[in-house]
Every structure is written in C-alpha cells, then in structure tokens.
C-alpha cells in the first residue's frame, strides 16, 4: 500500500518531466486559449533601484519593465499574463531557480524572470524564460543600454519570448507613424505623429499648419514619405525623423500622392495626377530619375511593392470601378486580381510576400481583408461603417488600420481611431492614441 502510493507520487512528479516537447504557441489560427504566462517583476537590488529612481523618476524600474512585457503579451492575444498577486516566489529567488511546483499551482505554463542592475550609469537587464511544465530554462539573455531605453528593453524581451514560443519574429520593438487629427470634421487639423507600438512616447512631427496625409516608413524606419499640402500644393515629401529635414520628392507639375518606399528603400513609388488622370511613377532617391510605371487614362493609385521588389500591386478603376491589380515592377504584365463583389482599394503587400491586404466597400459597409497574390482565398477580417488603409506588422501577423464613426442627425460625434486585428480575424483592438488618429504605418523591427 505504502509502496504503491510512492510509485503513484513518483509518476505524478515524473509525468511533467516526460513532456519532452517544449511549449509552443500556434499563431496560425485564432487563439481562444491564450497561453498562461507568469511575468515575474524583474528583481533589483536597493542600490540600483535608487539610482534608476533618480534618473527615470520610476520607483521600481524592474516592475515597470515587466509591466511593459506583460501588456505586450496580453495585447498579442496569444498569451494570458497571470495576476502578480498570486505569485508565491520572490522575484530574485525565482530568477535563480524557480520552484516550478509553485508556478504550476497557479497554472502558469511559462515564466519570465529577470534582474536589473545599474552598471556604470547604464541599465543592465538579464531575463530568463522558463517552461514550467517541463521544468526547464528555454532562454536566457542580457542587454545593456542607456537607462532611457528601458521601455525598449521591455519590448525586446517580449520579441524574444514571442519568437521563442511561436517560432516567428515579434513586432513589439517597433513604432507607428500616423496622422493625429483634431477639430471639426469639416476643418480637420492633421499632424504627423509617431509613437511606440504600445502607444508610449507619442511625439508630433508637424505643427498642423498644413494638411498632411498617408505617412509611410522606409525599411530602416528612419525616413518617412508622406503627402503634405504645404502652400496648397499637394506633394509627396520625404522626412528624416532624426534630423527633421524635409524635402519635396521630385519636381512634378501637379499633385503627387499615395507614396511608399521600395523594399530596398532606394525608390519612392507614388501617383502623379495630371489633367484628370492619375498614373504611377517611381523616383530613385539617389539619382532622382523618374520613371512612369503605368500609362492608362484611368485612376491608378495606392501602389505597393512586393517584398522582393519584383512586383507592384495597385488600385485602378480601369475596369470601370476600383479594383486591385498586380504588375511587374517595370509596369509590364498588368493583371486584375480582385473579382469579388464590391469595390477594392488600398492593396498592401504583406512582408511575408504571400498575401495582399486591402479595403473593400460592399453594400455600404467597409471591410479589411486579405487575399493571395493571385486574388484567390479572399478573407474578410472585419466589417464596419468606415475603415481603411491597413498596414502590416513587420512579421505579417497583425494589421493596423483606421476607423471613422458615423455621425448623428446633427452631424456630430465624428471620430477617427486606430485599430489592430490579427491575420486570423481575432483579437481586434483599439490602439490608444492621445488624439484622434488615421493613416497608420507600422515600422520594421528596430532591433534584431
């Protein structure tokens, strides 16, 4: 009797260790059971804590960083960060050697622990990811950076955890550039604004003196191309985010609009409108050579390169109504790919290359959807009164776009906000911005 009980106990202890396959998160379908994960506050010694409090005005930078990680994980929809009140083990001890039974008890399947140090005026952070069921360390990394970068450390930790558990690169150490909006619907004031992916560190880049639209990052996320109505001449501009230097792109005798960078960052592709006809052009930023890519009496706009630079998808009404087309990067071999009911606009090639995201208008409703690059497999992710302009997360798993509300009988109640949704169609979320917002563009991963 005693002996069999012993064996039973032994089995219970052994079973978890027998799980040789480490935890994995499947991101290819809607995740209705997000992985329970415990994010232990990063431990910090008293001396380091005081130093960081002086520099950053944060009482405990270790906890603050873990809150950034926790919020990121929650927003991804793939993880369920557990309530810290239930944690049994102190952060410093957990980081040395977690007592897996304790974490198992609160149903955590993964655990993040870590330590923060003040080293020669710098912030040194180490963190570990643990598989609670298998009782194993999955990853251990350390970074050193300037204290002001503490939020980025949180984002980088999230990216590493996300990558380790999903097998795909993360999208947390990224920024969003967008148009901040204020004022009545008939006289909106619009400014370029930039913020971290989680809404922190919001900064306005223009003053609102002129209308600005459709900002887009270059591949290194240091430059932005956008449309400005400076001096009432709508033209495509280039802005260096660090220096604030701006310049007009090309010397066109009319409106240029709908700009985007080529995947190598060397060209800008855009529309130029003349005499009631919009065609697509590229301009090489080095030698300033302008090339006409489409030549058709219809509206050709919203061009977007494939990630390998070989193809361009764009919007045209050459069939009579707005549809999506693809062509070779030199303008040859134009093919229509959207054939569903309704109008299609704003095609954007996914960074993975296999999908094109779009806006669709059908029977008075707006949809954000995706289709394969040959137009097959159309999937609508979300329906609304008005929404458009999807932009891909750098790993191609999330789309950010903007939505406008219907006004009431008096024309009141207008607002524009950023939203995000997973490629799966799940995890739709409002993205917090200090003002109304539109035209979001997602940066590449800032660190790798």
């Amino acid at each position, binding site marked *: 009797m005693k002996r069999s009980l012993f064996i039973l106990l032994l089995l219970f202890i052994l079973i978890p260790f027998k799980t040789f396959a480490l935890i994995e998160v499947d991101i290819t379908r809607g995740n209705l059971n997000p992985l329970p994960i415990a994010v232990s506050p990063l431990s910090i010694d008293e001396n380091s804590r005081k130093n960081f409090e002086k520099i950053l005005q944060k009482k405990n930078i270790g906890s603050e960083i873990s809150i950034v990680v926790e919020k990121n994980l929650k927003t991804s929809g793939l993880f369920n960060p557990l309530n810290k009140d239930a944690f049994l083990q102190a952060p410093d001890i957990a980081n040395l050697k977690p007592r897996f039974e304790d974490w198992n008890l609160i149903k955590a399947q993964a655990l993040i622990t870590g330590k923060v140090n003040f080293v020669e005026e710098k912030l040194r952070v180490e963190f570990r990811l643990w598989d609670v069921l298998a009782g194993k360390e999955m990853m251990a990394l350390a970074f050193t950076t300037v204290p002001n970068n503490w939020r980025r450390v949180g984002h980088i930790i999230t990216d590493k955890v996300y990558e380790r558990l999903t097998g795909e690169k993360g999208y947390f150490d990224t920024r969003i550039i967008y148009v901040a909006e204020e004022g009545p619907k008939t006289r909106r004031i619009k400014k370029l604004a930039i913020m971290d992916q989680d809404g922190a560190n919001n900064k306005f880049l223009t003053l609102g003196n002129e209308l600005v639209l459709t900002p887009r990052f270059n591949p290194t996320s240091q430059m932005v191309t956008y449309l400005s109505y400076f001096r009432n001449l*709508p033209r495509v501009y280039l802005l260096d985010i660090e220096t604030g230097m701006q310049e007009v792109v090309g010397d066109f005798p009319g409106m240029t609009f709908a700009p985007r960078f080529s995947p190598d960052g060397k060209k800008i592709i855009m529309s130029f409108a003349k005499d009631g006809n*919009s065609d697509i052009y590229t301009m090489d930023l080095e030698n300033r050579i302008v090339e006409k890519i489409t030549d058709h009496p219809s509206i050709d706009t919203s061009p977007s390169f494939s990630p390998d630079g070989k193809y361009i998808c764009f919007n045209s009404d050459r069939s009579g109504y707005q549809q999506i087309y693809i062509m070779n990067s030199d303008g040859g071999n134009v093919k229509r790919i959207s054939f569903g009911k309704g109008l299609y606009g704003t095609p954007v090639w996914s960074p993975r290359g296999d999908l094109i995201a779009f806006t669709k208008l059908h029977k008075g409703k707006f949809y954000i959807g995706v289709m394969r690059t040959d137009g097959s497999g159309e999937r609508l992710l979300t329906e609304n009164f008005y929404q458009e302009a999807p932009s891909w997360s750098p790993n191609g798993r999330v789309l950010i776009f903007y939505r406008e509300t219907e006004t009431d009988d008096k024309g009141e109640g207008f607002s524009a906000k950023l939203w995000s949704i997973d490629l799966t169609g799940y995890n739709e979320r409002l993205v917090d911005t200090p003002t109304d917002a539109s035209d979001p563009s997602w940066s590449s991963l800032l660190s790798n």
Partner: protein
Amino acid sequence: MKKSRIRNIDQGAIMKLNKILKNAFLIAVACLALSACATSKKSTGQMQGDVYTGTDTVEYLASGVPDRVFFATNESVLTTASRETLRKQAAWLRKNSDVTIVLEGHADERGTREYNLALGERRANAAKDYLMTYGISSNRISVLSYGKERPVDSGSNPLAWSKNRRSVTVKAN
C-alpha cells in the same frame, strides 16, 4: 460613363449652335430631368439620382453665378445642371478677364483616401475642361484636389455625401 472625357463631346462648335438649338435644348433638358426622376431610386427635393440639386451649400461668384457643381457617386461626369452652372461661370470669367481661379475637387467620405484624392482631381478637371471649351484659358485655372478631406456637410447620410461630391470654383486673386 465612367470616365470624364467630356472634352471630346463638347467642342467649341456647340457655342455657335447654341442659339439655334436653344429651344430644342431646353426640351431635351426637360426630358432628361423627367427620365432621371422616373428612373432614380431616390428623388428627394434636393437630390436627383444621387446628385445634389439643392442650394444649401452653394455660394456665388457673382449674382446668378453659382460657385460649385455636384457629382454622382464615383463619377466625374458633368450633369446638365453642372454644365449650365459652368457656362455661367465661363461667361462671368470672360467678362472679368483678370480673375484667375482654383477648381477645388472633392469626394465624399465613402471611399478610400488615396482613390478619393485622384477622384477629386478628376472632377475638378472635368470642370476645367468644360470651362476651357467655353474659351477660358488654362493658365487662368489651377486645380486642387482635397479628396475627402474637406467635407462641407459633416453628416453621415446620402444627402450630406451628395453635397460633398463637388467641384468648387474659387477666386484665386
């Protein structure tokens, strides 16, 4: 119907025929209006089809010279009423030969931003082409598209949208 290639239709010759055909023309207008009423789904007091026909938002360049013309959804074709307005503008511009103008093209909010910028430009150019056939020099006209950025009516209903689909002639000097 989809493209605004009105330049080919309305040549200067029409001007000469104008007086002769005036009566026939008026009858034709009446017929068109009737058929439009008969076929349109909605014909409120202020819309014909989905083209705005009211005067709520209209301002005047001079007495009897309205400043704007309206368009059907996704269209840049000038309606009969629009042509009449533009002929009045052309007459006024011929009389005031020092005036230069900006044609501001607009779209309603029910379209994607970039396409609407192109559509606004196309609409303003439809108006420009028509003014040019009535003898107004292209160097007196500049075109500026606002897409959906500057609605006059902030409503979210078909009537508000019809007011916003417009080309407005603005004195530039």
